[in-house]
């Protein structure tokens, strides 16, 4: 079998007395969409944070694209092809949607010690940025709107477009559907379906319809521990999972 794109081994992270990540081992295989689910506070965002390099784990290792990346910074990992979106969107709010994506394209093109040409008029950047916005379904006429003036759903789309700009080898998506309406959620599902197979993804999501529509494999996190991992049908049928998570979800 091919080497996994991402291999997380025995990751541990404590916040004081709380074990937010408890001996987590996880793999994302080439071409796979791997869903990571679990109740609120299970440690999903903390796991993503460690994989992307924003949070330093207490122990454990992370291999990505054939190399150990445990010691690399967030930005270094991104340059190696690991891209993420945030549960709470992180955008350049004073900049337009187009400028946000253009800057990400610029970052992917190499260093930015270029002092002379007007970056906003650089077609190499804006053409690619427009294509990315189209890919995530943000309408053309919204490209020139400041990020802070976009709707919540549009901001989620914009984040995905930015994450796609470097041409990532792995996407970490932290609740891309959170706060979206039913129609928006479906649209986002379709966008992800179109990406599926081309870019491996680790998808954290509470929207079970989306998860079971998209995932090739599902891992379930409870109190920082991975209690089950397998094919979607097997996970749906797993009694421990139902007890810990799915039934609770039904109760809402």
């Amino acid at each position, binding site marked *: 079998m091919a080497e996994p794109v991402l291999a997380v081994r025995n990751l541990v992270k404590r916040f004081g007395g709380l074990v937010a990540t408890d001996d987590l081992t996880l793999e994302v295989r080439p071409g796979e969409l791997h869903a990571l689910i679990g109740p609120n506070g299970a440690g999903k965002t903390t796991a993503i944070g460690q994989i*992307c390099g924003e949070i330093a784990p207490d122990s454990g290792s992370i291999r990505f694209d054939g190399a150990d990346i445990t010691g690399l910074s*967030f930005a270094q990992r991104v340059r190696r092809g690991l*891209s993420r979106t945030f549960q709470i969107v992180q955008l*350049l709010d004073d*900049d337009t949607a187009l400028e946000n994506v253009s800057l990400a394209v610029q970052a992917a093109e190499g260093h*930015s010690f270029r*002092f002379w040409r007007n970056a906003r008029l650089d077609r190499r950047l804006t053409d690619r940025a427009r294509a990315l916005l189209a890919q995530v379904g943000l309408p053309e006429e919204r490209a020139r709107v400041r990020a802070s003036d976009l709707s919540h759903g549009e901001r989620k789309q914009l984040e995905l477009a930015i994450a796609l700009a470097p041409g990532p080898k792995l996407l970490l998506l932290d609740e891309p559907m959170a706060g979206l309406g039913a129609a928006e959620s479906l649209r986002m599902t379709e966008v992800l379906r179109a990406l599926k197979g081309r870019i491996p993804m680790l998808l954290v999501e509470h929207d079970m319809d989306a998860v079971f529509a998209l995932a090739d494999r599902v891992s379930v996190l409870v109190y920082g521990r991975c209690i089950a991992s397998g094919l979607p049908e097997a996970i749906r049928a797993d009694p421990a999972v139902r007890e810990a998570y799915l039934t609770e979800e039904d109760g809402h």
Partner: protein
Amino acid sequence: MRERIVLAALLAAAVALPWIAEALGTPATVGVATRIAIYAIAAASLNLILGYGGLVSFGHAAYFGLGGYTVGILWEHFRLNEPFLGIIPGTAELLVTFPAAILVGGLAAAAIGALSLRTSGVQFIMITLAFAQMVYFLFVSLAVYGGDDGLMIRRPNAFLGLNLRDPATMYWLSLAVLVFWLWLMGRVVRSRFGRVLEGVRQSERRMAAIGISTYPYKLAAFAIAGAACAAAGALWANYARFVSPDMMHWTKSGELMIMVILGGLGTLLGPVLGAAALVGLEYTLSGITEHWQFVLGPILVAIVLFARKGLMSLFGRWGPGNG
């Protein structure tokens, strides 16, 4: 297009100022205008890191002072005809002292920035202030260069046969440097480098997420800002024919910050407006009352409270992103 015309008209008026002052019989105006131009360069240099990059450096006057002292010390060694540190000959040539000041300011800012930029937030404000105070006390204790009393420069630098003692000539030189620096900054802030700086101001986290390690960019901006501020200091030394540690006192750093914030953070012409307002207010208010700072305070608070982009809010079209 209309902006271009307005800018050209403003520039023409600025160039014609010495003649206008003469016609109106107010020659002192030229000196005030020179001070405004020099402070505008210093404030605009701070604006690069404070306004565009969001780096609250509270020690920017250090580079103003270092630029001034470069001119002063080279003059002193020229006068005594004995090389600085036994190797660097003194000089009174602006074509040497001016680039030397820029170099000194840039290198000092690179060194101070290299350490300070490892911190952020309040810590960064305090550490830049601490470094500036160190430079300040260094010059206070340097008795060879006048210590507390400063250094007189009896003759302004020679520059292409021009007489810098003539107020109008000194003014035009300062104005030329200001216009050049604003033009350069206008390019830089729109470039890829400038886009990264604006990103740094808005969200370090977002910058990391698109794969940019921000430290080298912040350091480069910090060094450029220091170099430009030292250029302003070199002009000041020639204008005032005097340098002293007061040039780098922390209150001077505060004044530069006020000019930037008052004029409009992250706007090209804001610092010029801010410098004009502060120097102008100081000039007029100090004529009315010696407690002019008490009057200035509330005016500043009002402007900061009611106009996010400072005085530049009055000229909405030239706000950031539009110019």
